[in-house]
């Protein structure tokens, strides 16, 4: 009977182990499956086409070029490798400027005819029209349908996911924003975290520690929205005043808030690691005539370096993946940051802010999933890197 019970318990444990790993794998697979669809999507919005005059030799345009053309930044076909002709941008809603309502018909039933006439009549035209408005004997030429390219996504410097006719999904500003904020958050948190950890494990008396530890652990229980709110109300105006900025919502505000959020994890893990340094090791050092501080920085810290490193990584992980607080205080401008005193936007904040309005299965939606994949890889790389470092230092010491 007891043996059967044990078998059952063993079975349950095995099952739960497998179910968990399968669930994790499924999440990763789902993420990848959704994300990879992006590269099969066309640059130009679905159901629409770009058309030019037959005489125009330009065959294809990149998403960035399309955007610049429609934003009026490129005004001559010369810049796109075509003839020296001015660009005329045409969207379907512009058609009323060319034709009267009667010519178009009550239900726009004659609109395709009109589109053809416009395209045929203007050598510099570029028309962005629904595919169903293109007649069978269309006098112009449709630009080649390009798929979203790898390079444009990963090396793209502009993130305009809702631009028409061609949205831009340049990941660089978001990746840079994430790393930037994360890096400075760690830079701010590290000295504080380490000193508090050293203080708590080595210096503080039992009573002080008994007071500090729960307080610091309490910090990790505060919801991130509350941190964001605190950042918005306190940190942002403060930075604005101190640095005389037009807006206080900057990368610096994000880093500060994230640093505060990463502290509890960092302190708790690093402190535990240091307290785990065997008493025998400390005594050996003290017995050789080392002072307490020499013992701390020559024996205790080197001994617990891998624990401290994992504390830092957990902190980094939290900082990189943190969404809500960053979303609230960084200003969310998708530009590549060059200083800490300008707004920026992180990957998680982008996903959180935009997923709600991105049509499911659309190109924007898939781009957000790809961002998720990128975030996944960033955190994974950091974890692997630190594991490598700590295993290496652990062995050679």
């Amino acid at each position, binding site marked *: 009977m007891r043996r059967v019970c044990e078998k059952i318990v063993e079975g349950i444990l095995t099952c739960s182990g497998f179910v968990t790993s399968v669930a994790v794998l499924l999440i990763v697979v789902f993420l990848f499956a959704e994300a990879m669809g992006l590269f099969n999507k066309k640059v130009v919005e679905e159901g629409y086409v770009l058309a030019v005059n037959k005489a125009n030799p330009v065959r294809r345009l990149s998403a960035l070029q399309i955007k610049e053309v429609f934003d009026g930044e490129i005004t001559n076909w010369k810049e796109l490798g075509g003839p020296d002709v001015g660009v005329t941008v045409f969207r379907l809603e512009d058609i009323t400027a060319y034709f009267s309502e009667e010519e178009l018909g009550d239900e726009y039933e004659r609109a395709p005819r009109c589109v053809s006439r416009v395209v045929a009549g203007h050598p510099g035209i570029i028309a962005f029209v629904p595919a169903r408005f293109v007649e069978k004997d269309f006098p112009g030429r449709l630009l080649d349908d390009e798929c979203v390219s790898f390079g444009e996504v990963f090396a793209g410097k502009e993130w305009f996911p809702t631009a028409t006719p061609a949205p831009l999904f340049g990941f660089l500003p978001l990746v840079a924003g994430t790393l930037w904020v994360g890096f400075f958050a760690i830079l701010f948190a590290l000295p504080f975290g380490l000193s508090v950890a050293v203080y708590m494990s080595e210096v503080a008396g039992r009573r002080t520690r008994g007071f500090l530890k729960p307080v610091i652990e309490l910090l990790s229980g505060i919801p991130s929205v509350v941190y964001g709110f605190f950042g918005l109300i306190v940190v942002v105006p403060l930075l604005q005043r101190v640095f005389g900025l037009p807006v206080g919502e900057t990368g610096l505000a994000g880093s500060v808030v994230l640093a505060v959020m990463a502290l509890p994890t960092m302190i708790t893990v690093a402190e535990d690691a240091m307290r785990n340094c065997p008493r*025998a090791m400390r005594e050996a050092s*003290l017995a050789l005539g080392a002072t307490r501080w020499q013992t701390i920085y020559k024996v205790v810290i080197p001994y617990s370096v891998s624990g401290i490193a994992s504390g830092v990584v957990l902190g980094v992980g939290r900082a990189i993946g943190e969404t809500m607080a960053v979303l609230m205080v960084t200003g969310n401008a998708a530009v590549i940051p060059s200083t800490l005193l300008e707004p920026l936007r992180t990957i998680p904040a982008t996903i959180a802010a935009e997923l709600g309005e991105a049509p499911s299965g659309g190109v924007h939606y898939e781009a957000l999933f790809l961002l998720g994949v990128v975030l996944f890889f960033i955190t994974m790389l950091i974890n692997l890197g630190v594991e490598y470092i700590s295993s290496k230092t652990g062995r050679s010491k």
Partner: protein
Amino acid sequence: MDKIDAKHVNFFYGDFQALKDISMTIEEKSVVAFIGPSGCGKSTFLRLFNRMNDLIPGTRLEGEILIDGRDVYDKSVQVDELRKQVGMVFQRPNPFPKSIFENVAYGLRVNGVKDGEFIRHRVEEALKAAALWDEVKHKLKESAFALSGGQQQRLCIARAMAVSPSVLLMDEPASALDPISTAKVEELIHELKTEYTIVIVTHNMQQAARVSDKTAFFYMGSMVEYDDTKKIFTNPGKEATQNYITGRFG
């Protein structure tokens, strides 16, 4: 000449009295063994000599411990200076997570020695004195954790000797070692006593008989008997000692 002179030492952990009125003198360049059942206070007494018990909160000492005629608990004594003079080897080998070389050099470095040539020289001397040099001279840069338990313990002895103490305290230095390593450590103690005053705590009575000049038997916080090792093991003055060394209790 007396190296260590303990006078009426009482020691308390909180309310618990761990040592009761212990007085003893230890001659310079001799080996004294402390024996007795677990919890009898012999380690506690040993750790008073280099003030290791200071680390434990809530302890209290009465009486005096003089080393070279100076009270080690006097306010003018710098604890780290004292510990340089009174080295200690612990029960379990406890090398630092550093290379073999750095382990031995540690004591010199924390004492502000910067001269690399001198450090190298001292490390070699200490390793030779600990009979470890030939085994590790090719791999001084390797981690101390790569050594066997016996080698680690001899490394710890070398580490303690590198700072040139005059007294060496050994708290059951061979209890975690196999017989061959134990024999090596004992041999080492024999050689070291020409230069150091050695106090060794041991559970192993044969070991005490082999290595020490004098032996003290502790029981329940009191020192029952303290005499020449030969006398203790052949003709003890007290019945309790007799019972203990013949294995009737403890």
